[in-house]
């Protein structure tokens, strides 16, 4: 689905990504885990063409990302940003409808666009918000609206940048559950950056552990989140426990 080889990126003299080779498989959830500054968000921005790589290639569905127009890419890859400053009081419905932008040929949404936006709002359980100004809703609701907007793009690949950041426990769990459902029910291929290893364990098929722009480990959650790896990446000792077949990690 996505094949990254020798990917490099940097700002001026600082190297942010130092030659990454990653493959994202169709229909999987790949979690990017690592401390602040490890290059997770940068990687997502390169995958959505917000940033241009310094070296290496990114193939998306077999085609070099450089050969995609912005419009074409937006039909294949959608992004849910971590920080979104809502400045204009558009209605929630309008914001979700703007996710139809890549498919819309004009400024006038077609009937099918409106139907898709409405059904996504229903699906995510936020249809009751549709006429509210989106500047005027809670952080958890805003995150769901942004997920709805990305879903409206109907892309095969979805990128989530720290979808649980700034959310309370309930909303964070809800968002993670929705992400799992997107894979299960809609067959989306998902790349998600996370901060909490437990969230990565809960949601991902594979985990990519990063530190300072390099890959520390990539593979199944159990293999990647070993005590040694986590000690190396975060510099702390952790303990792993299993409860009812589920693994949890906590700092010692």
């Amino acid at each position, binding site marked *: 689905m996505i094949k990254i080889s020798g990917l490099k990126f940097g700002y001026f003299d600082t190297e942010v990504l130092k030659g990454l080779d990653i493959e994202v498989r169709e229909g999987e959830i790949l979690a990017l885990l690592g401390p602040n500054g490890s290059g997770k968000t940068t990687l997502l921005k390169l995958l959505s063409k917000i940033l241009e790589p310094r070296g290496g290639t990114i193939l998306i569905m077999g085609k070099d990302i450089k050969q995609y127009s912005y419009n074409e890419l937006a039909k294949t890859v959608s992004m849910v940003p971590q920080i979104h400053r809502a*400045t204009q009081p558009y209605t929630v419905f309008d914001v979700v409808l703007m996710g139809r*932008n890549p498919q819309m040929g004009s400024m006038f949404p077609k009937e099918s666009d409106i139907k898709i936006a409405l059904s996504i709002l229903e699906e995510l359980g936020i249809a009751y918000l549709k006429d509210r100004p989106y500047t005027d809703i809670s952080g958890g609701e805003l995150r769901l609206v942004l997920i709805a907007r990305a879903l409206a793009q109907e892309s095969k690949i979805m990128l989530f940048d720290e979808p649980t950041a700034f959310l309370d426990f309930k909303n964070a769990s809800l968002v993670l559950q929705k992400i799992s459902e997107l894979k299960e029910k809609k067959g989306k291929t998902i790349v998600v950056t996370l901060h909490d290893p437990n969230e990565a364990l809960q949601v991902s098929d594979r985990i990519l552990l990063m530190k300072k722009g390099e890959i520390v480990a990539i593979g199944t959650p159990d293999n990647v989140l070993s005590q040694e790896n986590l000690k190396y990446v975060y510099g702390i000792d952790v303990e792993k426990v299993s409860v009812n077949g589920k693994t949890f990690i906590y700092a010692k």
Partner: protein
Amino acid sequence: MEKHSSTQNSGDYIKTPKEKRFLSVLVLAIAINIIFAVISICVGRFSISLQNIFLFFLGRLKGVEQSVILDVRLPRVIGALLIGATLSQTGAIYQGIFNNPLVSSYILGVSSGAGFGAALGILISSNMAVVEALAFAFGILAVLLTLSASRIKNDSITLVLAGFVIGSLFQSFTSFLKYVADPFSKLPQIVFWLMGSLTQISLKDVYIFAPILLLFLIVVSFFGWKLNILSFGDEEAISLGENPKALKRTIIVITTLQTAIVVSLGGVIGWVGLIVPHLVRFVVGYDNRYVLPLSALFGGAFLLLIDTISRTVFPSEIPIGILTAIVGAPFFIVLIRKKP
């Protein structure tokens, strides 16, 4: 149950409440423009009856009255409508691009550049065409300088700062020209030009510029949706399939041409681009698909009203830029206080 839905089972298109509201406001705006235009043609030192306006448009009016309408009133009415519409619409566009409610299309230095060009034109020639041409050329030049000055760091804040710097530079050039200008003939002309006035708009100006300005107004009205997408910021615009840099460049090129034309015709008229878009948003909300066309219509009506007042209410004509500010400032304060 589905209040917002625009669809029904048969597939017929039902307008949403927002669209209905937009259409009714649109009809109202067009009606206001027509009414104001008729009133403005009627009133003045030389009154013209409604019947004669009717006869004029049928091509059956002759003599002095025909000449007053054709050579004096009509160019001015059309000028006011188009200049007001352009200033207001470009103001709305810039507020969208820069995500800043306090900017107008003068922010990149076009008005200061045009002011300098006009002052230079007045000094070296007594031909209005030269003045207009120089105002236009220097207006464009100032924006080009702003764009190249901001290229070091390609973001909106740098662009606004560069616009401020280049604008100030041209203002000091203008001050220098005022300082050296003949204080009895040229200086008053420069000062009056800078205050904005629609007196000098001729029928020829209308023939040349009205089609261009009208075309631009229509084209720009269709940028509303993209402007909505841009308001999310560059990164999200990219992930929604737009190329924000190319889009902004296109919009800045078009709006600079628009603003340079209207400033070279009517001088520096402030406030229109600030108050009218805010008023429109107050009525129809923030969707730029509606804000852009309505800003144009209400901007035209607003400037026509002010211009008609400026030439009829006072014993001698007041420069229009003064009146837009006197009306605009308190109006703006009321608007801010009422904002939810």
